[in-house]
Every structure is written in structure tokens, then in C-alpha cells.
């Protein structure tokens, strides 16, 4: 068996750690966590949480794969195809993750256990719904103590949601700047003055700013189960009632309604798209610049396919997430990622949370109505784009070429006097032919735009 690779993000918890061996992820349980682990498994808590689809399921492996002296058990959790981070989620995804954390917390306390941390990194979205993945986060509940993870819950979940609610700041942007949570002091200063009169904000934000910890002798505060349940209930009702403050009209919100192009364009494009994907044997897809997810939803009609829908606009991704929750669509994961500013690798040694580039690959990459934004608006030379898309795709590419004469392209260059050349069909095809072979090509009737289906060349 190859040498197990200890996952870099997993070093912080002495109870155990995640590692990879033979391409499979495992979680080792250390001796120090043995009692808590057994309580989790035998008390019925694990069973309940897994039955509710709240906690990731795992199997126990009897071998000590890492040959460490501290070994107690090895767990093999259910496979996750893609890891995403809270700074890539929209408001409602963060909110759902927060509510799941509180729901698990409540259930745990019923079984005499408690969560020792409340971090959004403990949650993933494998089937479009939040799932708690940190099996070692449970510990025996001591009713005389308050919740050790309360501050973390506030800084990572509640405060970003508050800032989105009152100030209209994207939760993703806040967590990009503060990946380990935004402190109460800063949150208090950013929130409008009127929040000092809101009971929830007063208690959870402003109070932490006013009351300062002190060193020196002090009594241990007295707490109780009932007090904790009141606190959790309060957090639940506050969290559930927050809504993202609508941003000023976003440029992409009504892209297809406002389009100067005809209704015919959308219908024809849809017809061609369906034709291109029928019979194409792909199991994973990335929809780049997905907007409201119109084409992602078409892809999701194939139940065997997993789709990741990416757009920089949080309002669009929010709408798509609302749609998939309402309609219970399990195979789309919407994410707020700007492909011009994709998630970097962060954490200790830039190694704890991996970059967008390292995590995202798909058999089919869909890049509709995108290329003119990259070249004409973002000034990325046309020549550099095929290589980028070839790195993302392991199979096919469906891409729409938007010529310079197109109304939308004209809008983009209206106030510019220079943009990257060449930008025309023959150069487009020439550059892409280096990395892909063009399979199908079709003009979208009603426009001068061309839809391509390409296959990646094996190098």
C-alpha cells in the first residue's frame, strides 16, 4: 500500500485526521477520541444523523493504515466527488449550512453529546444539499458549560449572514477576506447603527463588542441544558429569518429577458444544445458563467450527470440554488466563483484549502455566451483561452463564439478604443484546434453566433 498522504488541512484536531491512501480518503480516529467516538456510535446519535441525511456515512476499517502509535480506528467515509469552500457558496447555502449545524447540535444534546466546533468547512454539498462531514466533531456534553463553539458559529456563519442582510455584502466575499470568520468588533462597526436596537444583533454582535474578557481570577460561569437550548433556539430563529439584501440591479440578472437578441435565439440555442449533448457519454459537467442555470437545468435532465454551475453573480447563483431546492434537483451544485478571480490555495503553507484549478475538472465544459466577456471585457487574449479550457475539461467542450458584430459584443466595446486582436472566427478555430478537434459547428439561427462541440485532443 502506498505511503498514506496526510491531508494538510487535517492537522488541527488531535482527535484524528484525514489522510489519503491509494486514492481513497480515510479518517483516522486516535486513542484520545476513542470514548467520544464509541458514544457517538452506540448512543444512536450516529444512526439518527445518518438516517436524516445530516451526517456523512462511514465504514470502519480494522487496519491501522498509517502505522501510528495513536491509532484507534480507521474510518472510510462515503466518497465526496468535489470539495467546495464556504467562500464559494451563495447566501442561502451558507444559511442552510448554519441551520444544519444547529439542527445537528440540538439532536446531539438530546443524546448527551455536543459539537466541539461550528465551522462551515465541516459541511459539504454532495447532492446539492448540505451534509456534515466531520465525524470527529462530537464530544460528551457537559451541561455545566456553555457551548465552546458559539463564538466560531457567530464569526463564521451568523456575522457574514448579518452583513449580507443589513449591508448587502456577499457572504462569499466576507469569507474570502476572513476565512476563519469575521470578528464581532468589525461586524459591529460595519452594521448600521439601527442594529443596536435589534435584540438579536444586540445580543450576538454588539454585546461581544461591549463586554471584554479579563485576565485574573474569576468564577466559572454557571450554565444549564435549558439555557443552552434557549440560546440555540434563538440562533435558529434569527438565522432562519435573515435574507440577502437585494443588490442594486445586477448586470446579469435579466440577461436573457433584457437581451436585444430575439426569443428565437434562446429557442434555437436550446435546440442545438440538446442535440449536441444527446448521446454524449459524459458524467460530469461544468457550466461556466451559468447565469440562472438555464442550460445547467437542461443538463440535469440526464440523471447520471453531476453538474457544477459557476457564476460570479451571487444573485444568479442564489436563484439557481432556490430552484434546485424547490424542485429537489439532486445533480446540480451552484457556486459563486468568478473565473477571472478563482479561489486561490490558502491556509498554512498555502496548502490547507486548494485552489479552483486543483479541484475542478469535468468531462464536459460548457462555455456559452462567455468568450466575448473574457476577451473584450476582461482583456484576456483569445489565444490563451483554449489552453485554459483544455485544462478544465477531460473530454468535451461546448462553446459559443460571439463575433465582434454581435450586439452584446458591441456593447462591451462601446467605450473602448482598443481590445485584443485577433478576435474572429478563423483565429478562434485556429487557436482551439491546437487543443481540441471541432466535432460539430452550427450557427445559431437569428444571430451570427456559432455553437461548437469540440473534443479534447490527447496530448
Amino acid at each position, binding site marked *: 500500500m502506498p505511503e498514506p498522504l496526510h491531508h494538510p488541512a487535517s492537522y488541527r484536531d488531535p482527535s484524528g485526521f484525514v489522510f489519503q491512501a491509494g486514492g481513497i480518503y480515510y479518517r483516522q480516529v486516535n486513542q484520545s477520541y476513542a470514548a467520544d467516538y464509541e458514544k457517538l456510535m452506540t448512543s444512536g446519535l450516529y444512526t439518527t444523523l445518518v438516517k436524516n441525511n445530516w451526517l456523512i456515512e462511514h465504514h470502519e476499517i480494522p487496519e491501522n493504515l498509517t502505522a501510528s502509535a495513536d491509532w484507534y480506528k480507521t474510518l472510510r467515509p462515503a466518497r465526496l466527488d468535489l470539495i467546495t469552500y464556504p467562500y464559494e457558496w451563495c447566501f442561502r447555502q451558507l444559511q442552510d449550512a448554519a441551520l444544519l449545524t444547529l439542527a445537528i447540535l440540538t439532536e446531539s444534546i438530546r443524546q448527551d453529546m455536543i459539537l466541539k466546533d461550528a465551522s462551515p468547512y465541516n459541511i459539504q454539498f454532495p447532492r446539492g444539499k448540505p451534509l456534515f462531514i466531520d465525524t470527529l466533531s462530537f464530544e460528551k456534553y457537559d451541561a455545566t458549560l456553555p457551548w465552546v463553539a*458559539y*463564538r466560531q458559529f457567530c464569526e463564521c456563519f451568523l456575522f457574514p449572514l448579518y452583513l449580507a442582510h443589513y449591508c448587502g455584502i456577499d457572504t462569499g466575499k466576507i469569507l474570502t477576506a476572513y476565512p476563519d470568520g469575521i470578528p464581532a468588533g468589525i461586524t459591529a462597526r460595519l452594521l448600521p447603527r439601527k442594529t443596536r436596537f435589534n435584540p438579536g444583533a444586540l445580543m450576538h454582535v454588539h454585546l*461581544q463588542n*461591549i*463586554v471584554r474578557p*479579563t485576565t485574573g481570577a474569576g468564577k466559572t460561569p454557571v450554565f444549564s441544558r435549558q*439555557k443552552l437550548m*434557549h*440560546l440555540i433556539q434563538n440562533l435558529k430563529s434569527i438565522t432562519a429569518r435573515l435574507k440577502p439584501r437585494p443588490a442594486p440591479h445586477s448586470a446579469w440578472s435579466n440577461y436573457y429577458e433584457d437581451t436585444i437578441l430575439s426569443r428565437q435565439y434562446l429557442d434555437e440555442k436550446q435546440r442545438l444544445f440538446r442535440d449536441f449533448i444527446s448521446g454524449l457519454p459524459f458524467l460530469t459537467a461544468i457550466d461556466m458563467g451559468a447565469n440562472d442555470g438555464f442550460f445547467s437545468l437542461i443538463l440535469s435532465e440526464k440523471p447520471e450527470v453531476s453538474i457544477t454551475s459557476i457564476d460570479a453573480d451571487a444573485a444568479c447563483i442564489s436563484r439557481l440554488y432556490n430552484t434546485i431546492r424547490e424542485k429537489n434537483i439532486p445533480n446540480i451544485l451552484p457556486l459563486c466563483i468568478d473565473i477571472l478571480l478563482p479561489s486561490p490555495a490558502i491556509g498554512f503553507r498555502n496548502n490547507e484549502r486548494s485552489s479552483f484549478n486543483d479541484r475542478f475538472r469535468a468531462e464536459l465544459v460548457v462555455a456559452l455566451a462567455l468568450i466575448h466577456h473574457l476577451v473584450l471585457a476582461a482583456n484576456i487574449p483569445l489565444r490563451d483561452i483554449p489552453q485554459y479550457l483544455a485544462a478544465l475539461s477531460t473530454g468535451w467542450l461546448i462553446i459559443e463564439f460571439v463575433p465582434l458584430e454581435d450586439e452584446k459584443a458591441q456593447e462591451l466595446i462601446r467605450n473602448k478604443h482598443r481590445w485584443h486582436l485577433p478576435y474572429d472566427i478563423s483565429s478562434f478555430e485556429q487557436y482551439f484546434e491546437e487543443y481540441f478537434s471541432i466535432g460539430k459547428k452550427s450557427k445559431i439561427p437569428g444571430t451570427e453566433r456559432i455553437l461548437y462541440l469540440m473534443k479534447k485532443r490527447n496530448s
Partner: protein
Amino acid sequence: MIRAILLYIDPGSGSYLIQVIIAAILGVAFYFRNLWWKFRSFFSKNKKDHPPKNDSENA
């Protein structure tokens, strides 16, 4: 203007002191809420006006 309350040690990590204060506030709030519900249910024959059985306190 509230002055800083310097009584207990706050372990820093969990904001224990804050939780104690919040729990106290909520305790008062829940007390009056239950009082109000009992008052309301006394006058109403509607089932929905009676305090819910499965309250957070019974968790």
C-alpha cells in the same frame, strides 16, 4: 453607555460570558412569552393558542 463588565474569565474561544448573559436575557424573555401564551390560552378555545408542548425547554 454600557461600561465594560469585568467579572468572569472569558476563555476567549467560546465567549462563555456572553452566552451566560444572553441565556439570562432569553430566560426572562421566554418566561414572559410563556406567561403571555398561558394568558391567551385561558381566553381562547382554539387549540393553536395554547402553548406548544414540544418547546425548546423540553429538548
